[in-house]
């Protein structure tokens, strides 16, 4: 099989969509936060929390969907902490974000060790199974790639549609977008900027956590340390790459995941001639490259990272 044939196999695209799913959740979550004007660098830690919380809920006997809900709630809780520090108190979103990531990650590891002190290899759960959609899954390649996934992947696509609809088609979405562009416009129309921003950060964080939960409950079947492995930071790059638009960010996530799936297969073909680390570096290098390409013409939400005080114009 040569390097090009890979692109024509269904298994490649199935893998690409699977790899994209957690990124899609977390990218939408980050996009919502940033659209409201808050950079959420807690993403990496919040994904870790979600991965653990979802997995542990199932391990402790809970239902899979219950796991998703618990992960979302855990994510929202850290979102609330982040939002409290950055919105009403207006603290540096950089420092607080890194702090949330450190706190969420270490708290997760602490809890893991506390609850499972003796285990050497992490216990497994029965994860989400692929759920082929009748009729659609029979379409060659495209149908297989999109419609033989687990329910959580379908939910990821629903999340994109929902995010896009809410941002552009609802009164709430107007308020979120305005809060990230000119918060005084929101205040002047009698809506609380603090409320909108805090809400956006909590909802966004919940979505990040579901993205993390995808890793332990759909892509794999157990929790291990450092499993998020920089995916959160990649999602931040994807938001920029997608110009803060859900549809474009979705395309970015899929392109990125396709590349990731491709490099794994290319690694097998090249058979050890090129060090495998080179392939593993590529997703990160690609993210930096994507940032450079779009940075010049990126139109940031104007109030991104700028704290807002009531009555201040």
């Amino acid at each position, binding site marked *: 099989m040569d390097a090009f044939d890979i692109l024509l196999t269904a298994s490649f695209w199935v893998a690409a969509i699977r790899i994209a799913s957690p990124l899609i959740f977390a990218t939408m979550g980050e996009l919502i936060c940033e659209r409201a004007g808050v950079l959420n660098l807690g993403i990496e830690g919040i994904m870790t929390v979600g991965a653990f919380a979802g997995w542990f809920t199932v391990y402790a006997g809970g239902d899979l969907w219950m796991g998703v809900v618990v992960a979302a709630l855990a994510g929202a809780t850290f979102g609330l902490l982040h939002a409290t520090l950055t919105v009403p108190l207006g603290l540096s979103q950089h420092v607080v974000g890194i702090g949330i990531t450190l706190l969420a990650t270490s708290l997760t590891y602490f809890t893991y060790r506390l609850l499972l002190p003796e285990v050497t290899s992490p216990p497994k759960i029965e994860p989400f199974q692929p759920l082929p959609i009748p009729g659609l899954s029979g379409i060659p390649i495209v149908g297989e790639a999109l419609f033989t996934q687990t329910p959580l992947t379908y939910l990821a696509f629903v999340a994109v549609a929902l995010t896009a609809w809410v941002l552009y*088609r*609802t*009164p*709430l*979405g*107007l*308020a979120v*977008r*305005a809060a990230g*562009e*000119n918060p*005084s*416009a*929101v*205040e*002047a*129309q*009698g*809506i609380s900027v603090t409320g909108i921003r805090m809400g956006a950060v909590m909802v966004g964080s919940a979505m990040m956590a579901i993205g993390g939960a995808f890793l332990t409950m759909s892509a794999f079947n157990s929790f291990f340390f450092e499993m998020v492995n920089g995916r959160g930071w990649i999602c931040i790059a994807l938001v920029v790459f997608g110009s803060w638009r859900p549809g474009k960010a979705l395309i970015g996530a899929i392109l990125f995941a396709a590349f990731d799936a491709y490099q794994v297969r290319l690694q097998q073909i090249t058979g050890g001639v090129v060090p495998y680390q080179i392939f593993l570096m590529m997703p990160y290098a690609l993210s930096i490259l994507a940032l450079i390409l779009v940075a010049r013409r990126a*139109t940031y*939400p*104007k109030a991104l990272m700028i704290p807002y005080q*009531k*009555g201040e*114009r």
Partner: protein
Amino acid sequence: MSPVLRLSGITKRFGPLLANDAISFEVARGEVIALLGENGAGKTTLMNILFGHYVADEGTVETFGKALPPGDPHAALQAGIGMVHQHFTLADNMTVLENIALGTQGLASWRLDRASARERIEKMSFEFGLAVHPEAVVGTLSVGERQRVEILKALYRDAKILILDEPTAVLTPAETDALFATLKLLVKQGLSIIFISHKLNEVIAVSDRVLVLRAGKLSGERVTAGTTRSELAALMVGQEVEPPAVPEVEPGELQLVLNAVSTVRQGTGMALDNITLSLRGGEITGLAGVSGNGQATLAALIAGTEKPASGEIIVQSVKVQEWSPRAALAAGIGRIPEDRHAVGTIGDMSVTENVILERYRTPRFSNRGFLDWQAARKFAEEIISDYDVKCPSPEARIRLLSGGNMQKLILGRALDSAPSVILANQPTRGLDVGAVGYVHRRLLDARARGAAILLISEDLEEILALADRVIVMSKGRLSAASPRGARTIAQLGELMAGHGMEAA
């Protein structure tokens, strides 16, 4: 008939500053009230309390006989108060319709009803002569159009009381007339209007009754028909306003010449279009114009933060090669920036650290890369005493100083080295009367010692009082200069609107 709005005993303090002192008044239906006062008299604070941005320390607000809960903009909107802020509260990335509809439909709703919003906006914009396209993105609109959107925002919510905060500051004279026509239509519909201004002419033209604020207190209340300009002016500043004495000074050498300079347009700024300007020693050149017509770019060019794309800059008959803030400073240009908080000072650094900002690299303050903090502190103390700056100590963070004291410090920093050219961009904006007089005196002193001064101001009266010659800027171009008193205000207004620039 009961008043639509009643304020009783409103008091608001910011730390030691008494911004509003027991202010009470009423507004009747269909009445236009002018709230007149100098910058810093407390007008905007009062309106922010009315609209719920601030909470008053004492006092109550009633609308239509009902108490208004404090600190809640939503309640103010519900009670029929609409506010057009001086700095527009519009989201540039959204359309006119979206900006107007923001917050008017339930946040829990799953769909924004665009059709009905659009219909309503079109109807109102026709009815009140407020032409705007509902689907236009706000970022692409002109200043005048944005203001119409702001007024529509209030009307869309059935505002009964419309507050306009310095609405004409950004308008051309023609746009101002259109605004006044709209206001007349609104009053006919039974709206009440509070018109905040510090411009006497406008207040007399538009209002039924004038309330004058001075230093946070209500200093007088007059029926417009029964008062005069000079009476209002006296109420506003507390004594007869005396224009500063401007002694004769013989114009000197050419200090700064811009020859056919153009710049590249950046972002939303206005580019300079083939500008020629000469500044002589001992002369104040006043640059008038509606804000956003390129004054900021011209100021940036002279300050060194903007580079010319074509044309030349000549300082004391030497053509400039490299242009930067450091080059401008080295060429002897003293600069007073427009925004003293964002550009003029570094709020979280001390007074000492701020005064050496422009010349910490000179031998006076540094030696082989090491700073001489003793010299810096001494310099700060000199400025503090020479320029009458009130501050706890040279170590105090500059953020804690009042606007006037901050401006005096900037003035000291810019003027201390006796620069041959002075760029004074909006040097008195937002200052109280005393500080304004102080800044004017210092500029006149500099003129007397032979400095060439460019005074950029949106306040025509300031320019007419100080400038030896007046130039009008419109759409990035300059009019010909006219000597003191040669053009009437109406003629200047024509130029400001961009008429007759070519002929000029």
